[in-house]
């Protein structure tokens, strides 16, 4: 479904991602783990079209999207839940969700709302509230719900557990699993490797912009190098 071919991205003199190869098949949950600054967010931003790749290619369902503007990539079926959630704090919860369905017809927006409320009932209680007043966890639910309103086939999540109370992290990951069971392919980036490896089928490890390891998540979780560097064991 998604394929990165020697993707490289650079910010001025800083090489953020170099020659990354990565594949996500339809229906999978794949995770990309790595330390702060390893290039995880940049990789997702490049896929979503917010960062222009320096070279390399990005294929989505066989078509190159590496030079496509972000709003067309969204229309093609990829939704990114950005790092720090980036909800529209000047809009109500409902308006945020409606913005998520910007490219959808009114009937699809109505059914999309039902779907999001089933997944995150808390959002329904806060519908008319200004979204800036939500807690971090609720904002994350809103950001995911907003991304789902676009009916993506591929959902990209950037650190969905960052800065969120443990109980809500559970609810959020349960939601992600449920979304995946409904047939949405998921690529999730995490610093919290425990969580990410538990909730994914396959994983990639990113170190200073390079992919250094890949494999089934269960196997990587037992890899001594991963245990030491990312799981705090060994």
């Amino acid at each position, binding site marked *: 479904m998604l394929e990165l071919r020697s993707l490289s991205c650079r910010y001025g003199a800083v090489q953020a991602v170099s020659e990354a190869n990565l594949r996500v098949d339809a229906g999978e949950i794949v995770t990309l783990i790595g330390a702060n600054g390893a290039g995880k967010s940049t990789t997702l931003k490049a896929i979503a079209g*917010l960062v222009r790749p320096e070279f390399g290619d990005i294929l989505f369902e066989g078509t190159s999207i590496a030079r496509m*503007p*972000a*709003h067309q990539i*969204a*229309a093609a079926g990829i939704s*990114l839940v950005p790092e720090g959630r980036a909800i529209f704090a000047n809009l109500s919860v409902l308006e945020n969700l409606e*913005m998520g369905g910007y490219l959808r017809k009114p009937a699809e927006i109505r059914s999309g709302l039902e779907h999001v409320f089933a997944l995150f009932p808390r959002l329904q209680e806060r519908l008319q509230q200004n979204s800036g007043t939500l807690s971090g966890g609720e904002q994350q639910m809103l950001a995911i719900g907003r991304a789902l309103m*676009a009916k993506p086939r591929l959902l990209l999540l950037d650190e969905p557990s960052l800065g969120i109370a443990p109980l809500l992290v559970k609810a959020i990951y349960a939601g992600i699993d449920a979304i995946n069971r409904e047939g949405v392919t998921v690529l999730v980036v995490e610093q919290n490797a425990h969580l990410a490896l538990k909730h994914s089928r396959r994983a990639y490890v990113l170190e200073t912009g390079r992919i250094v390891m890949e494999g089934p998540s269960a196997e990587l979780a037992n890899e001594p190098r991963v245990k030491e560097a990312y799981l705090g064991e060994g």
Partner: protein
Amino acid sequence: MTVFLQQLLNGLSLGSIYALVALGYTMVYGVLRLINFAHGDVYMLGAFAGYYTSRLLHGHLGAAGGGLVEAGIILMVSMVACAGVGMLIERLAYRPVRRASRLTILIVAIGVSLLIENVAQMVFGAEPKFFPQIIPEKRFDWAGVVFTNQQILVLATAVVLMIGLTLFIRRTRTGKAMRAVAHNPDAARLMGVNVNFIISLTFAIGSALAAAGGILVSLNQPGIDPLMGLMTGIKAFVAAVLGGIGSIPGAVLGGLLLGMAETFVAGYGSSTYRDAIAFLILIVILLLKPAGLLGKGQVEKV
């Protein structure tokens, strides 16, 4: 009391013009964090577009509807023409430097303003032109407060345009996208919003409102010239800052307050100080409440 009501009415009428122009400053600032210094010149172009349209029309319509039909057509033509000018300015001048430093963008904005003023002087001539009296003035006397049908028309048109704008921003899908872009353009892109289109549209709407301001002013004060946008532009900018730049209700409030401040100073004090009050207000607001009356968040350096 009569004097007070009289000045209040005059102030509201003048202030609604400032409010219309201030809306363009604040909307553009909202999506681009840019002070469009050419905005006052678009207001001037609006007046000239109306002037030339009325010359083309004159005699063809007679006095249909007491001049209201002609005024309506002129208003429409001028708003559409200036919407186009606004989009053109954005496309040709601001888009190429959108990622440049703030100083670069500021200098481009000043350059565009000077360019329009000078080209306008070449094309229209530097001497003032007289806007035809499309709607014959009627004076009404209400317990000593004198007002004209033109003042009523100015107020009514401004109110209709502002309500229309508010409904558009609040209720429509595109209006929501505009607010989303103002808050976070990248996140809006991820929703499938074509940010360039929204920015273009923002310039179009802001410029159309400025054009309406230009027409409404000319109905009352028929002398128009290529530099008429300078003072009004600066004052509308002060109004936008007063209300809180980036805030749409703020622009309306700021415009009305500034208009009233001017007429009250002229009415109770001396009309010599009428222009000074705007700048006094600007200095005071920047010292005491730099985010403006309804603005929030930090004020950035321009």
